[in-house]
């Protein structure tokens, strides 16, 4: 899947990944897809909750070691 925007939050701890993801999504159009990568151990749960609360869809999650990548559709 080709995302409309890619956001690298690896190396950043809470609250930065959620904050940056939220800002990125705010700037995107409805229907567009954001790819966000992070390696904070709680990032996946936090980002999933953020998407759910904002009414966006998590299309998929992939994991590579500590790093998790989510595709979120606005």
């Amino acid at each position: 899947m080709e995302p409309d925007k890619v956001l690298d939050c690896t190396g950043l701890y809470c609250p930065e990944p959620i904050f940056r993801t939220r800002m990125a999504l705010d700037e995107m159009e409805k229907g567009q897809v954001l790819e966000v990568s992070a390696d904070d151990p709680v990032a996946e749960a936090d980002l999933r909750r953020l998407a759910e609360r904002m009414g966006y869809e998590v299309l998929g999650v992939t994991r590579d070691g500590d790093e998790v990548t989510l595709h979120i559709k606005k």
Partner: protein
Amino acid sequence: MSIRVYMDHGAGRPVDPRVLEAMKPYFTEHVGNPASFHSEGFKALEALKEARSSVAELINADPSEIVFTSGATESNNLALLGGALRNRKKGSKVVRSAVEHISVINICKELSRMGFEVAECPVDEAGVLDLKELEKHVDDDTVLVTVMAANGEIGTLQPIREAAELAHSRGTLFHTDATAAAGQVPLDVKELGVDLMTLSSNDVYGPKGVGALYVKKGVRVKPHMIGGGQENGIRSGTENVPGIVGMGEAARLAKAEMEAESTRLAALRDRLIEGVLAANPESYLNGHPTERLPNNANIRFSYIEGEALILSLDDLGIQLSTGSACAAKTLEPSHTLLACGLKHEEAHGSLVFTLGKNNNRNQVEYVIQELPGVVERLRAMSPLTPEELR
């Protein structure tokens, strides 16, 4: 003149004008490096010595046990990373409470990446550390335990002496982040039995960008700033002399004035809590009813979001917080309130009032008077509000 009621002292405090006066000459007049071997250097060294003594006196430490840093976050880094890494031979487990400041939480994540096991010790619904749980978590492999002295968000004071004793019974180092507690409640490192204590300058009305770490004589921490060996070799870098002078003067004033000021603030806090709870249906106090910081009131309002309250109150000249800066930035519920057992929607509707030197009874009455109108208006707009409250 427009009204300004600043009740967000947990987030940022003014510098006491007396502190600013004490600092001024060190910006332009006494500009020497404390390491220099001439009269200006000696003057700077003397100022450092005096500041170190004042900070030590605030917590009943020896001046040689005070390491100046750039603030509470750095002190927490030095204590936790430095303490755990330097004493790794002892074990590979670190225990923290569930309601620590974000800096402690994130440093613990870093430790877990480095191979340490990190255990989180729960708190009760008032935010008080569960000592029985702590006892289960601390074992012979535990290298360090960290529990904050007081929670800046809900104000709850922790049983530090008991927790430190428990840690020591397993030969484990004990650190406490006393950022929120310092200058508000008496802190005696000997009586509490702590090995490491974090202090912040701004939280005692000193300048931002300065802090200190108490390192008990004999306790070893790994330096994280390598350089010319300043601060006992633990924290290299030419000392921030004006900032440190400011923190010293702030600590001296805190020690001298704490008793009277804490009594005054506790009375204002109690009036605020009583007034707000009485004037707003379905409002509740978060944190412990009595064992709390003299300046802290954390109140939950059902059916509305804290952020909306903050914005509406700001229009009335009242500045408050919803919780930690982490929660404020992301609009996520506070981890502290969730750890106390609140549901997400409950945690969202909380306001943190942190009082300070410039607050007075009139301001408290103004807040009590203005809040119900804002709460009612927001509840009228909230789909969650039941019919009888509309």
